[in-house]
């Protein structure tokens, strides 16, 4: 029988949403024991990489308003976002900005000492609060450091959660492996929050770190929670060729240009008003169109690109506000952005879909919440605006943390079912570690990524998606239970990688099935065979449930409060 550990609120994932939730739950009552389980060191979560900023209405006296922010978000989402949730979110956002400010966040400032804001794609007001172009690093640091303030938060660095323990529709805990010594634990908890981030590593050309392997999504999916809107994957316009490292939208926010082979600012043909600062789906499609029509620069690896031109901004602006971009361009691209344009191409960047939750971040399982990119509330609908994701992480981290704290106060001790724990231990150690069979997981992963990049990229097509689905199912067959070459217990990364690929295959299937079913083009999901938005048939969210023979799809309506669907023009 594996050892047992206990906590009141258990948080899986230590990114922005996870840490924010931990702080909220812990500050609510010092008797609530909060455990954060993370498969990396908490500070290594990929939230550290976001650069641009966090959107919030800070200066209504200057013309911004909650309604304007909500409308921008709704319009950006191609009217698929739930408007009640969006209104709730934008209302809480400024408070979160100020909380971070009070906890030590070095927001960039105006001359009068107040928080500065910069323009961002799709926003009709300059409302992205930023800290140079390392906002994520500073925000993560602020939150991670603040967790030290609370003695009732314990962070379990490098613990890999393998499954959720659910009985009678109620959350009971998780099973996890302590990677350091390979011990298997059952972790009892009264409430759980999943904040494991997105599924970006399904693609080979991606801005995500190596850790974003959709674990949380797959675990939730396996215990019967539907995954919502998984066909919507955002492609950020500017990923550095060839690594895929993100060149933040801040580069365009500060006035960078996109140019094609002829040196032309081609965005004038696609979004004449907003130009480079149109929403990401539109810019990405424009770039891909330029590339496909032969106006891009060729790349020997097939990663054709266009140019992001910052040379006219001057060294001073780049040094003060775009330092990280300068570092990335010089070190990884071998290009000095003050002198040469940067080669960029649309890159997998964000999973709009995720674990199905209601307006407040609650999943259908009692006691289980989801927050951040792993969740789909849905506030981003079919396309997310820049800076809104980190706002969502903070706001929903706060909301779920608060609710979880309230929830556990009235709960007795949770008692997870033994047979589930034993079965999971058997599956991992007897089934995979000692007795695993199947092909090399790394090759499977590479093939999966190539398939997804080829068929489920910016432009999609029914036939291609079906082809990809066939391929993914074939990969699943070849993967078997998963084969682990490294038989040792201590820090068995090979085992973890196998478990990750297992989860990725699961989620990839959902993405493809959802995408095949949606026969329209909306936001980031653009079907060449159905290029029009279809509000009559498709103004609804996809829900994918796990069944023995693949995902079963269901649909629920979009909540509309103030803004009926209209044509989207920038």
């Amino acid at each position, binding site marked *: 029988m594996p050892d047992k550990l206990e906590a009141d609120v258990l948080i899986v994932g230590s990114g922005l949403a996870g840490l924010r939730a931990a702080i909220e739950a812990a500050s609510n009552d010092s008797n609530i024991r909060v455990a954060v389980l993370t498969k990396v060191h908490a500070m290594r979560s990929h939230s550290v990489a976001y650069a641009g900023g966090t959107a919030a209405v800070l200066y209504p006296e200057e013309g911004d308003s909650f309604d304007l922010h909500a409308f921008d978000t709704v319009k950006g989402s191609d009217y698929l976002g739930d408007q009640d949730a969006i209104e709730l979110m934008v209302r809480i956002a400024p408070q979160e900005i100020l909380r971070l400010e009070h*906890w030590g966040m070095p927001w960039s400032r105006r001359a009068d000492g107040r928080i500065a804001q910069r323009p961002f794609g799709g926003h009709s007001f300059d409302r992205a609060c930023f800290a140079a172009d390392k906002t994520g690093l500073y925000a993560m640091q602020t939150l991670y450091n603040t967790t030290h303030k609370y003695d009732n938060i314990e962070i379990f660095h490098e613990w890999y959660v393998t499954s959720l323990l659910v009985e009678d529709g109620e959350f009971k805990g998780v099973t996890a492996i302590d990677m350091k010594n390979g011990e298997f634990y059952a972790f009892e908890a009264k409430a759980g929050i999943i904040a494991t981030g997105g599924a970006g590593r399904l693609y080979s050309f991606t801005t995500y770190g190596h850790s974003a392997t959709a674990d949380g999504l797959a675990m939730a999916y396996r215990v019967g929670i539907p995954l919502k809107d998984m066909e919507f994957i955002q492609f950020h316009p500017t990923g550095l060729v060839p690594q895929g490292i993100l060149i933040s939208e801040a580069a365009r926010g500060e006035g960078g240009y996109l140019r094609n082979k002829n040196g032309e600012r081609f965005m004038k043909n696609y979004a004449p008003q907003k130009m480079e600062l149109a929403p990401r789906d539109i810019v990405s499609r424009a770039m891909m169109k330029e590339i496909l029509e032969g106006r891009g620069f060729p790349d020997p690896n097939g990663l054709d690109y266009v140019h992001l031109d910052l040379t006219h901004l001057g060294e001073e602006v780049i040094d003060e506000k775009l330092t990280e971009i300068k570092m990335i361009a010089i070190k990884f691209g071998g290009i000095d952005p003050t002198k040469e344009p940067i080669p960029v191409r649309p890159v997998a960047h964000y999973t709009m879909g995720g674990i199905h939750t209601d307006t407040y971040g609650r999943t259908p399982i009692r006691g289980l919440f989801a927050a951040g990119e792993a969740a789909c509330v849905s506030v981003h609908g079919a396309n997310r605006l820049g800076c809104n994701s980190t706002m969502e992480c903070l706001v929903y981290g706060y909301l779920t943390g608060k609710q979880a704290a309230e929830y556990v106060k009235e709960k007795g001790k949770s008692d997870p079912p033994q047979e589930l724990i034993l079965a999971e231990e058997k599956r991992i150690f007897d089934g995979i570690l000692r007795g695993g069979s199947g092909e*090399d997981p790394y090759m499977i992963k590479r093939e999966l990524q190539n398939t997804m990049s080829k068929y489920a990229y910016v432009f999609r097509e029914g036939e291609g998606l079906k082809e990809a689905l066939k391929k993914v199912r074939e990969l699943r067959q070849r993967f078997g239970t998963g084969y682990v070459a490294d038989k040792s217990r201590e820090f068995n990364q090979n085992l973890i990688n196998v478990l990750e690929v297992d989860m990725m295959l699961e989620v990839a299937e959902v993405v493809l099935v959802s995408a095949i079913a949606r026969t329209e083009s909306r936001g980031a999901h653009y079907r060449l065979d159905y290029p029009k938005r279809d509000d009559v048939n498709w103004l609804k969210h996809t829900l994918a449930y796990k069944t023995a023979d693949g995902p079963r799809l269901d649909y629920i309506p979009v909540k509309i409060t103030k803004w009926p669907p209209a044509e989207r023009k920038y």
Partner: protein
Amino acid sequence: MSTDKEVEVKFRVFRFNPKTDFVPRWQEYKVKVNKSTTVLDALLKIKEEQDPTLTIRYSCRQAVCGSCGMMINDRQMLACFTRVLELNSDVIKVAPLKNYRIIKDLVTDFSELFQKEKQVKPYIIRHDVEELLNPTGTYKQTEEELLGYIQFADCIECGMCSSACPVSATDPLYLGPMILNRAYRFISDPRDLGFEQRLEAIDSEHGCWRCHFAASCSAVCPKGVDPAKAIQLLRRALVKKGVLGISSSKKVELIPMGHVKGKLELPKGWE
């Protein structure tokens, strides 16, 4: 762009599992690399194509998460921030960071480091507790005040500075550059009022006075943080305040923001 031809490079990688092996061994691999291949890319290529048992800690691959600090040719470097060909050597020696306990292969144990971090109370300490939790405005801070600490806030906690430090080489209790830098980041923040409360850890026998300005920490820092500078400025603050008794009072103005409201209605439990 990446039209450059591929070159074969030899890697000598440190392999050791303290639980099962008696002594470490060096294993050699040959990898094809091009101009843009980083050491991390090469190691992952080894892991995925040649030896899945090789254990490396890695995550973001863009020098911002701080996972992949290791000894590359005997110097602390981030594997993702070092291009293989930039090293100009035929054999590349890769070993775990010095002065941390080894968990396996290239993975080292950071738990002591994180424990030390907690000792210096790395968060904003203020008396207005209610304002901290439910803000009504923003603390005024000019860009100039920001510049006083922003360099030290750039730390990604890769732990390489503490690994390079010659004092940490003999004294495991020494807080080390990473932690002292973190402490000074908060002490120099105009919003923070917790100077006295951090003294117990900083001003101890294993605190900031064990630094002897070898500046190796700054030499290896991949983010331009300059922890040596932070430590010296920290000592300056200690001497100024603790020894000479010159205290500069920190006063931070709160600029209220009317539209931010604290309370909201949330549903309770599940229906």
